[in-house]
């Protein structure tokens, strides 16, 4: 009787899981398969598409760099320190995940636009956001950074504070302790958070289209081609972006998994 129950449980679990996998894979695979090799090849030699790919990944890398610079310290503080309002702060950090990205775009425009406070401030040193690459970067940073902060904080949480304490009693400074103890133990989770952040940035449409429609990123280009020229123009670009994202994910997942194995052995 119990055996039977376990079986049905397994079967139901497997069926439901399979449905979800199909649900995710089918549209993506269809987009790639029905695009046709010629169309994809043609699109890959389309100067406009290549330029958009360049802009998109360039902006995503800059936003990831900025994210690391600010997100890691914040994650560290959230993990190690207790202070009043911490729960609220953690909620605020996750806000970009829950608000519509068009709303995020409007919020950013209000602050980084030509008449916004930061917009004016940065204009004095020659950085502009509306229809500039810096606008794309802030949009990507805004919608993506919660992934990095959350992943890093979780990673820091998992590290035994004892380990840091021991290092400190042995005379390591806070800096040394962070660089040689904390970071090496947490980097894998941080990397996967960073990849999530980058992926979110690359795929961002709503916020980017509001603050910086030009220069055209790939998601905006897909939208423009779809709207203006129809499915046939948009589909190969979508297929290419799916393939690139998939490749990037596989590479980074295997990379971090391997390193993890080595870490375990050492």
């Amino acid at each position: 009787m119990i055996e039977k129950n376990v079986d049905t449980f397994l079967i139901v679990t497997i069926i439901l899981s399979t449905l979800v996998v199909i649900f995710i894979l089918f549209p993506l695979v269809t987009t790639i398969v029905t695009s046709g090799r010629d169309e994809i090849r043609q699109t890959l030699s389309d100067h406009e598409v290549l330029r958009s790919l360049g802009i998109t990944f360039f902006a995503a890398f800059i936003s990831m760099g900025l994210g690391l610079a600010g997100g890691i310290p914040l994650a560290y503080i959230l993990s190690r320190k207790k202070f009043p309002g911490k729960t609220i702060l953690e909620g605020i950090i996750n806000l970009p995940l829950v608000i519509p990205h068009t709303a995020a775009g409007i919020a950013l425009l209000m602050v980084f636009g030509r008449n916004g406070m930061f917009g004016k401030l940065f204009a004095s040193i020659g950085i502009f956001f509306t229809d500039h690459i810096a606008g794309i970067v802030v949009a990507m940073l805004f919608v993506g950074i919660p992934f990095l902060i959350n992943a890093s904080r979780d990673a820091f949480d998992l590290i035994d504070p004892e380990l840091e304490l021991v290092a400190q009693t042995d005379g390591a400074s806070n800096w040394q302790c962070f660089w040689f103890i904390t970071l090496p133990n947490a980097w894998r989770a941080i990397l996967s958070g960073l990849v999530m952040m980058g992926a979110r940035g690359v795929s961002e449409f709503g916020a980017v289209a509001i603050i910086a429609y030009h220069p055209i990123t790939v998601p905006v280009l897909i939208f423009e081609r779809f709207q203006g020229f129809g499915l046939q123009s948009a589909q190969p670009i979508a297929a290419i972006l799916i393939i690139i994202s998939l490749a990037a994910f596989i590479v980074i997942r295997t990379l971090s998994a391997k390193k993890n194995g080595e870490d375990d052995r050492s």
Partner: protein
Amino acid sequence: MKKIIRISFILMCLLPCLTGCRPKEKNTVVVFAAGSVITPMKAIEQAFEAENPDIDLQMEYHGSIQVIRHVTELKEPIDVVITADHALIPTLMYAVTNTETNQPYADWYIRFATNHLAVAYTDASRYQDEVNSENWYEVLSRPDVKVGIADPRFDAAGYRSFMVVKLAEEYYGDPDIFFDFFAGEFRSPVKTNDEDGLQVIHIPEIVETKPNSHIIMRGASIQLIALLESGDLDYAFEYESVIAQHDLNLVHLPDQLNMGEAAYQDYYDDVEVRLDFQRFQSVNPVFKGERIGYGITIPTNSSHQEDAERFISYLLGEKGRAIMLEYQHPLFEPAYGNNYDNIPASLKDYVVPEPND
């Protein structure tokens, strides 16, 4: 506890039945309209649905060219098409055969309203205290002034704005206006040439402004309003009705330039915009300079012809007209029918044949 949850769940499921709020069967009529009528159409949608509870209007707004593409290229089931340029309907719908029905996508339209192009600005716009109908082109050309224009590939307001700037050269007697306005602003230049007196503007396939350009472009003129309000734009080419609906300031353009006066047709037709690329499946549209005319039609593949006719009757009838007027977008009375014989009988009351039909 479990019991309470279960009972409340059942109650929640039953609630809609108890209150009798189950949605009645409604016919959905899908209306794709030019962005410039979004504000009055919202009011008309509400009023129409209140009077016709059996119809649910589903409105969607885009640049006018986009509106038609949704029918002919994206093959969406659309029941009513409203464009800010009636000429797009013959060019992009009459001339294109729907392979499923072997019919053109449309075989009649009604030209029901006009508009005037103008320059919109706010109290925070740079040089707003000096701009006027005589110097606008000079103020807007200044490098520190940000000007919004709709994308001429997708929106009628876009190619009309380019026409206005070109026409301004003759009107103000300054042959450099277009050049001063646009030269060096785009990654692929917008070129013009003179064909026996006809000024032809060539729009390249890629219309993207350079970084630090004083021009900012969006897919539809209506999308420029938010950028004006946020201060990211100082000026934008918009229709007068839209400017009034958003309480923005405007520079009136002279009748020879605002594209809205029948008496000045001879001025408007000195200019033409061509898309210099072949990406569209069927036709390469040429946009002739002419008086602004809004067009409305029912695509031949609409599956709700009758309901769509009811909506158009409402719009062109007394109540629709009153709402449009309230939103500063008066309708023609009567409207003009192109291919008059094909116009559904229920709509003929509001329409006279197009004069040169």
